[in-house]
């Protein structure tokens, strides 16, 4: 989206103030409560940057902190009565600040890591270490895209997903040129650097379009659907881009009768009650909130809901480079979620996003909470 198009959206913000305040917005500064920490204030800041004309807004530290502390969770977009895509406006603002070299320095490293190592963490191990054979499985019509987080930080998600594919008899492959989806570059204002690596990956997809690409990371799936939408659409209209929960829903019966095992698992390995956390990208970017619930209901797995759930769910605090640039803010948001988990009496957080899982687990461990965190695919694998 270019500047002119963004201007066409910004004017629609009538500053009504309905956008989430309080803890619904992870970057809202409860103590200071300045306008710049509200979603509508961030829109004002992007407006200011676009209207800059020598006033120096692009070099402002406040503008940097306000915009880059946005996790892109999209709660403001959901709440906005005018339906304004505020995160998209903020991303354009970030882009302008990157052009002015005014962005968190931790993001520089992320950019370098993606360029050099194909992942944002700077991990030097090859991406396909765990499944080299899948790379050459050229006949498979289903591609599994695990994403950097599942490969390097929550490998049990990727491993268990592969096991589930095997049980389901799905012939899969991974991409020869798999790289970071680069959603993080887009969401931190570095869209111009999406670059060669991603192009190679997309070319590979274009050469022989698969029947479907299955993702376990909602962030990666959102990147493919949003950022590469036009490029992918032109070349292979017939390829389905699916989150694993969408893919699995029709096939859940093929995993066998899991109901009997649910009771055993809950009595032993998994602490009750279990609470379902809706990942932001999954519910607000992709509109997927019925599928995971339908899977849990199909196997009669008991769970409870957060007070705000589905499209109105609250962010885990991570995302869009906030975890690296503003770790205290990310942790504060996660703690708010965990405190609600405690208030509701839950002892296990169940989710379907490696990023959310990793963020929750980090904060749980650091602060010594007696809470477990588990991914849906790990749960399902345990039941099979």
């Amino acid at each position: 989206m270019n500047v002119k198009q963004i201007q066409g959206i910004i004017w629609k913000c009538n500053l009504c103030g309905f956008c989430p305040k309080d803890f619904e917005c992870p970057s809202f500064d409860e103590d200071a409560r300045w306008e710049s920490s509200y979603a509508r204030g961030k829109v004002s800041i992007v407006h200011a940057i676009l209207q800059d004309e020598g006033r120096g807004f692009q070099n402002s530290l406040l503008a940097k902190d306000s915009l880059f502390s946005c996790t892109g969770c999209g709660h403001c977009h959901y709440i906005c009565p005018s339906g304004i895509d505020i995160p998209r406006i903020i991303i354009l603002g970030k882009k302008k600040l990157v052009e002015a070299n005014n962005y968190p320095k931790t993001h520089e490293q992320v950019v370098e890591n993606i360029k050099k190592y194909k992942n944002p963490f700077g991990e030097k191990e090859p991406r396909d270490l765990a499944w080299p054979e899948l790379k050459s499985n050229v006949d498979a019509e289903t591609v599994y895209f695990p994403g950097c987080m599942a490969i390097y930080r929550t490998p049990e998600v990727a491993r268990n997903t592969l096991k589930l594919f095997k049980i389901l008899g799905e012939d899969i492959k991974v991409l020869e040129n798999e790289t970071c989806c680069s959603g993080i570059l887009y969401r931190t204002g570095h869209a111009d650097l999406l670059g060669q690596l991603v192009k190679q990956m997309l070319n590979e997809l274009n050469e022989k379009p698969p029947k479907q690409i299955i993702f376990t990371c909602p962030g990666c799936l959102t990147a493919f659907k949003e950022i590469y939408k036009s490029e992918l659409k032109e070349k292979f209209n017939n390829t389905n881009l699916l989150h694993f929960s969408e893919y699995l829903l029709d096939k859940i019966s093929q995993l066998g009768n899991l109901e009997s095992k649910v009771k055993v698992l809950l009595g032993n390995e998994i602490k009750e009650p279990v609470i379902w956390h809706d990942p932001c990208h999954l519910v607000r970017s992709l509109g997927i909130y019925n599928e995971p619930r339908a899977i849990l209901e199909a196997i009669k797995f008991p769970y409870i809901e957060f007070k705000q759930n589905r499209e109105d769910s609250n962010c885990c605090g991570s995302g869009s480079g906030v975890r690296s640039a503003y770790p205290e803010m990310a942790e504060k948001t996660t703690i708010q979620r965990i405190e609600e988990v405690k208030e509701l009496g839950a002892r296990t957080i169940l989710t379907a996003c490696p990023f959310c899982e990793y963020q929750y687990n980090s904060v749980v461990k650091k602060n010594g909470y007696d809470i477990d965190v588990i991914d849906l695919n790990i749960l399902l694998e345990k039941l099979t």
Partner: protein
Amino acid sequence: MIDPSIKSKFIGIIGKQYVADDPVELYCYSHDFVSRALSWISKDYDFMPDLVIKPKNADQVKEIIDLANAENLKIIPRGAGTSYGGQFLPIEGGVIMDFNRMNKILEINTEDNYAIVEPGVLYKDLRKRLRSTDKGYWIPCNPGSADVCTIGGMIANDASGESAIKYGTTRDYVLKLEAILGTGQRVQIGRLVKKTVSGLDLLSLFIGSEGTLGVITEATLQFLALPEIFLTVVGFFDSIEIAVQAAKEIKEYVTPMSLEIADQLVLSGMNSFLSRLTPKIVLKISKAALLIRLDGEEKVTSDQARYIVNLLSSNEHSLDVKIMRGFEHDYLWKARDGAGPSLLRIQRPFRTVATFPPAILDFSVPYSKIQVLMKKFAEIMRANNIAFTRMGHIGDGNIHLLCTIPLKSEADIRKIGDIQDELVKLAISLGGSVTAEHGCGVWKAPYLNLEHGVEVVDLMRKIKAIFDPNNILNPGKMYESKKKFNFQTTNNLSEKS
């Protein structure tokens, strides 16, 4: 740019972390919806404050007012910044006093049914507290911004909205105020009683004065017992004129809590708003709908609803009538609260920015004149090839006329001014008012002479001068119809009709 020595004085009063002069922060406080749109055309509409400050208590407010008088600074009080008249715009620069730190509910007295609050308390928080008391109470004002506005802002603007037809406006629930006048004098106005004729009604004078007489530091509000039930009858019609007639028939039978009208575009906007909520409800798209909210004892209210259903069903132009309860009722009113902004969801894309003419947004006219006003509005819009919509609190004669006009140049700004002038003249000639509830602020101030006559407005100015002799409080609003911007009328509107 404020003098550093003066900034230091503010810091001395309230602390460094509560004084902002970063240009980016100031910019965030420089617009409302209208000036935001106009600023794409001209920087004249960037109303940058010199400082934004956040006092914590009345003592600090007093010190700030004293400092402003000593240093000849302008003070602009601000609540949640949700008003539509430009009340909170620092059009002459100055210091914005943001009240969101003065946000304590000080007392809920269920013996005498009053609450004492600081001005920065969010109305939704007070409502939540009142609802959660043993018996359940409420203050029955329902401005569209009820979920986000502050009590101070409601009082300063005499907010009302959807339930004014039965329950009146904020004014009807304020018992007492503590304020710091423009002179720096600290006053208590009002008593803990509903009825008093003791002296001049300064309380009423203060309510709706848009921060031009003094700064509210504490408010005592009366609350009522919550009704047993709420339910809403929605009637859909094939003609907006018929809907207006039907509303009159309803009024003759009962005074509902709310009696709202929405035209086809508004219904589409509301549906767009509702589409994001689960479970789903969808409103029938028709030329017009009436939303009739009833409250009270269950049997009486249900009987009233049935009567209204029968009444509307027998109308040959009625397309559908239904009663909404529970979540349907709640969602409907959420959608109604967000109906104005929701129109932007369905707004066709412009190649440029746009705005609505703010002075035609909020007329009230005698009920018998509503049709004339709406018809003329439609004619002007059609003549100018501008899409338009009509909605509002038809039960009390308050109609919101909305249209979105693309802005490419100063000529478009003048065009908006011309449209406003014609419609404002009409509304006033019909015996109406230029603003029923949104306030004068900047955008409607030029029309006060036309509505009240020069002498009366001059009297208002003299009253203002008693409370605020140095004109430090919210200058350029209400009484001051400076022809500063092309957007405002340049026609001769000084004579009372």
